[in-house]
C-alpha cells in the first residue's frame, strides 16, 4: 500500500511519526484500515470465485480437454460429458431473445427519449424499472402456465402451418423448447435494453437533432439518420448487456426449455442451456467427474458473460462521454 502513506516529505522523520500518532489517536488510520479490509474482501471474493471455478473443474479439463466443447454426449452413467448441446441451447435461446427484444426495445427507447414528453417518459421508465425488478422465477411461472400453453395450442401450430417448410419449424409442437425459452428471455431483457438505450439517446446533444431538423429532415429522419447513429456504440453496449443477462439467465429458462440435451435445427424442439442444466442437475450429480463437468459449464458461462459485460461497459462509457449526460450502468 505504498500509495496511501501521506507523510509530508519535508517534515523529517520525527514530525512524520508524530503526525502518524496524531492521526492514529484521532482514529483515521483505524477507520482507513477497517474500511480497507472490507474493500479488499471484494477483490478477494472475486479472485476466489475464479480460483474455485478453475480448481473445481480440473478433472474434466484434464480428461476431456477441448473435446468437452466438441462432443454432444451427456451420459452420467458412462461418465461421458460433452458441452455442445448446452452451448448450442444457450446461444439459440439468446439469439431468439435478441431477435425479438432488440427491435421492440430500441423502438420503445426511441419513443421514450425522442417523442414522449418528459413527464410521460419518466412515468413509463418507472414502470420499466419495476419490470426489470421482477424476479426470473416469476417469469418462469408465467412462462409455464401462460406462454407454454399459448405456444402449444396457438403459435406453434400456426408457425408450422405457414412456415413448416423451413427446418426451423419442424417437428411436434411441445410448447416447451428453444422458441418458448427465447420468447420468455426476450420479455425479460427488454427492460434492460429500453432503460440503457433511453439514457444513451437522452445524452445525445440537442444540437445534433436541431441541425438535422433545420436541414429539412423529418422528425423520423433526424432520429434514425442522426441521433441513433450518434448513439450507435452505446446502444450496441445496451444490447451486449442484455445478451449477457440472457446467457446467464437460469430459472425462467430452466422452467420452459424442456431440459433435454438435444441439438436440433428446429426451434420447436425441447433443449437445454448451460444455466438450466446446472440448475436442474447439480444437486443430483453423483461422482466427481459429473459435478466437475457442471462446474466447468459454470466456468464457460462465467467467461462468456465476463467478456460481454466488459465490452458493453466500454461501449456505453465511450458513447456517453461523446454525448452530454452521464449514463449509469
Amino acid at each position, binding site marked *: 500500500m505504498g500509495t496511501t502513506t501521506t507523510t509530508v516529505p519535508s517534515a523529517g522523520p520525527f514530525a512524520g511519526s508524530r503526525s502518524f500518532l496524531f492521526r492514529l489517536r484521532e482514529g483515521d488510520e483505524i477507520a482507513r484500515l477497517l*474500511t480497507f479490509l472490507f474493500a479488499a474482501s*471484494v477483490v478477494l471474493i472475486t479472485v476466489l470465485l475464479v480460483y474455485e471455478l478453475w480448481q473445481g473443474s480440473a478433472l474434466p479439463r484434464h480428461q476431456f480437454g477441448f473435446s468437452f466443447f466438441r462432443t454432444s454426449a451427456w451420459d452420467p452413467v458412462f461418465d461421458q460429458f460433452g458441452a455442445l448441446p448446452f452451448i448450442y441451447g444457450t446461444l439459440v435461446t439468446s439469439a431468439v431473445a435478441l431477435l425479438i427484444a432488440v427491435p421492440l426495445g430500441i423502438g420503445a427507447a426511441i419513443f421514450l427519449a425522442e417523442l414522449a414528453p418528459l413527464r410521460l417518459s419518466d412515468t413509463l421508465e418507472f414502470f420499466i424499472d419495476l419490470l426489470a425488478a421482477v424476479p426470473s422465477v416469476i417469469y418462469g411461472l408465467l412462462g409455464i402456465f401462460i406462454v407454454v400453453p399459448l405456444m402449444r395450442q396457438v403459435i406453434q401450430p400456426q408457425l408450422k402451418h405457414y412456415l413448416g417448410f423451413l427446418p426451423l419449424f419442424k417437428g411436434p409442437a411441445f410448447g416447451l423448447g428453444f422458441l418458448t425459452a427465447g420468447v420468455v428471455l426476450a420479455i425479460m431483457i427488454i427492460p434492460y435494453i429500453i432503460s440503457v438505450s433511453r439514457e444513451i439517446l437522452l445524452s445525445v446533444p440537442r444540437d445534433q437533432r436541431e441541425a438535422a431538423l433545420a436541414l429539412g429532415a423529418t422528425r423520423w429522419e433526424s432520429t434514425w439518420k442522426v441521433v441513433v447513429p450518434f448513439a450507435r456504440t452505446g446502444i450496441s453496449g445496451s444490447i451486449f448487456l442484455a445478451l449477457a443477462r440472457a446467457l446467464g439467465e437460469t430459472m425462467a429458462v430452466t422452467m420452459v426449455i424442456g431440459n433435454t440435451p438435444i441439438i436440433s435445427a428446429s426451434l420447436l424442439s425441447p433443449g437445454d442451456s448451460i444455466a438450466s442444466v446446472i440448475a436442474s442437475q447439480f444437486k443430483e450429480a453423483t461422482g466427481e467427474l459429473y459435478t466437475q463437468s457442471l462446474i466447468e459449464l459454470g466456468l464457460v458461462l462465467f467467461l462468456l458473460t465476463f467478456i460481454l459485460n466488459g465490452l458493453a461497459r466500454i461501449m456505453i462509457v465511450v458513447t456517453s462521454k461523446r454525448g452530454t449526460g452521464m449514463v449509469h450502468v
Partner: protein
Amino acid sequence: MNRRLRWRKFVSAFMLSLTGVCAVVAVSVLFLILSYLVFHGGTSVSWSFFTKLPAPVGEAGGGMANAIVGSAKLLLLAMLIGVPVGFFGAIYLAEFSSSATAFVVRYAADLLNGVPSIVMGIFAYSLAVLPFKHFSTFAGGFALGLMMIPITLRSTEEFLRSVPASLREGAMALGASKWKTIATVIVPSAYRGILTTILLAFARIAGETAPLLFTALGNRFWSSGWSQPTASLPVAIYNYAISPYEDWHRQAWAAGLVLLGLILVINIVARGVLARGISVSRS
C-alpha cells in the same frame, strides 16, 4: 407539397407511431404479469398459506409458513454480509483510497455484479456447502449476501461521491478528523441515497432462486437454527410450478403473488418516495 415530401412525412409519422406501439407493448407486459398474478394468486392466498406447513404430497391444503420464515432468515443473513461489506467498502473507495486501488476494487465489484446467479450458486456451494458436507441456511444466506455486495458497493460509492466537497472541507476546517467528518457529515447527507441502494439490493436478491437451489436446498418442514436446509419462497415457487399437482400450482401462484408484491412495494417505496430527485443507478 410534392409527393416525395408527403411520402417522407408519412414514413415519419408511421415509424414514430410504431415506436409508440413498442413502448406500449413493453409497459403493458408489467400489467399483464400483475393481473395474471393477482387473478391466479389472489384466489389461492389464504390465511393458512401464511400459517401452515406444506401438506403431505397428494393432500390438498397446507401453506408455506416455513418458506416465508426461511426466506426471512436467508435475507437477514444476506443483509448481514452484503450491507457492511458494501457500505464500508464504498466508504474506503470514496474517502480513503488511491485511484489505482479504487480501480481494482471497482473492477472486481463490476465483475462480481455480472456473474450469473447460477455461477454464484456454484461458488457458494464450494465455499459453504462442500467443507461442511451439508446444505444449510447459512450457505444460502452467504450466496445471497455475495450477490448483494457489488450492488450496494457501487451505488453507495456514487452517492458518497456526490456529496459536495464544500461540506467535507467545512467539517475538516472546523477541526474534525476524517472519520468524524465521514460519520457525522458525509454519510448523513447521503443517507437517503444509501438507504435506497440497500432497499433495491434487498429487493433484487429477495427473488433470487438459482443461488439457493444447491445451497439452502429446500425443506418441507421447519428448519431450526442456521445449519439445516431451509425452504424459501423463490425455490418453493420453482418446485411447486414444475410439479404435476394442481393444488401445488395454485400455491405457486399464491407464493408468486406474495413475493412479487413484496418486491414491487420495496421498489416503489425506494424509487418513488426515498429516491425522489436523486438518480438511482441501475445494477
